[in-house]
């Protein structure tokens, strides 16, 4: 089903269930990773991820395209996650299960690549929650600084600053490898 996200959401609001399926298909992977990399447990991530979509479903009657659908979706996710960021650490993917360096047959390089990823994962985990959130929104959802500011309720300058700090710290983790 074609159409902009906002059109699909309006169609769903008006009772077209297929429009939601199309919308869900577009955003499921990125939103899932955003949530998964923001909380400690996979089970909790799945629960929160489902909850975010349930809120979208519940809010459909009130939906009005004031901003990009992505901004609206991630603002819902932000609101749902913000308490977890305050209380808990970050759940990163299981680095051991990640596909490393295109199945390089050299065992030494594989170990090195796994260490690099682990260092990067640790750096991401060590970011302050607001910086990590800004980075994940930018990287996963492709949101601009303005959109991140809109979704999280912070000033544009603050969003820009947080994103820059996050990228700088992660860049250091990459360089250290």
């Amino acid at each position, binding site marked *: 089903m074609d159409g902009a996200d906002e059109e699909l959401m309006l169609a*769903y609001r008006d*009772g*077209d*269930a297929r429009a*939601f*399926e199309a919308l*869900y298909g577009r955003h*499921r*992977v990125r939103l*899932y*990773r955003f949530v*998964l*990399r923001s909380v400690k447990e996979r089970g909790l991530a*799945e629960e929160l*991820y*489902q909850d975010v*979509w*349930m809120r979208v*479903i*519940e809010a*459909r*009657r009130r939906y009005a395209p004031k901003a990009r659908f992505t901004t609206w979706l991630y603002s819902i996710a932000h609101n749902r996650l913000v308490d977890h960021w305050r209380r808990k650490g970050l759940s*990163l*993917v299981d*680095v051991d*299960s*990640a*596909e*490393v360096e295109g199945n390089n047959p050299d065992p030494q390089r594989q170990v090195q*690549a796994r260490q*690099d*990823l682990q260092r*990067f*994962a640790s750096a*991401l985990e060590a970011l302050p929650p607001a910086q990590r959130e800004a980075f994940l929104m*930018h*990287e996963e959802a492709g949101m*601009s*600084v*303005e959109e991140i500011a809109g979704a999280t309720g912070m000033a544009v300058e603050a969003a*820009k600053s947080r*994103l*820059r700090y996050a*990228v700088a710290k*992660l*860049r250091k*983790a*990459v360089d250290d490898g």
Partner: protein
Amino acid sequence: MADERDPQVSRRYRGLGAQEPPRALDEAILAASRRATDAPPAPLVPPAGRRRWYFPLAAAAVIMLSVAVTWHMQMEERPDPESAMLMRAPHPAQELGREEKQADESRRDAAARPKRELPPAAPAARDAAPAGRALEAPSASMLAKQLAEEPPEKVLERIAELRRLGRHEEADRMLEAFRMRYPEYKLPDSVLKK
């Protein structure tokens, strides 16, 4: 769109993997989305369990209460037969012929007025108005009360009656109060002429 991406950071981030939500989770969310489009809008207070019987009962209670209050108000407005008789009874100090003449004049005036200005009053009110309470000199609080309780047509009848009796001071006072309450109301000559 300002892009703050660092290609090397992005590449390393992508290396963390491309996890997807479990299929069962997808199915659960999509099923919920379909159910939502099938379901009618939720009531403001959804009835559940034992509270289901509450709603018809509450609706019936509200209707009965409304009927009772309306009936009570109508009964209060209608004078009981005994007091109506008292109001119609001739005052000892007044001559019978004079009173009848006043009543006739009042009825003639009412009939002569254009209908959109003054719709005819109910028969009971028409009988009761001229002779009794209408001729009492009202205090300021009584005036306010009369204006609040009585329809404007009836108040105008009282003012006209006072004019006919030459009690212009009282008529002016009542007219002033009337104008404050009903500034848009078109006044007939019978209440203005002295």
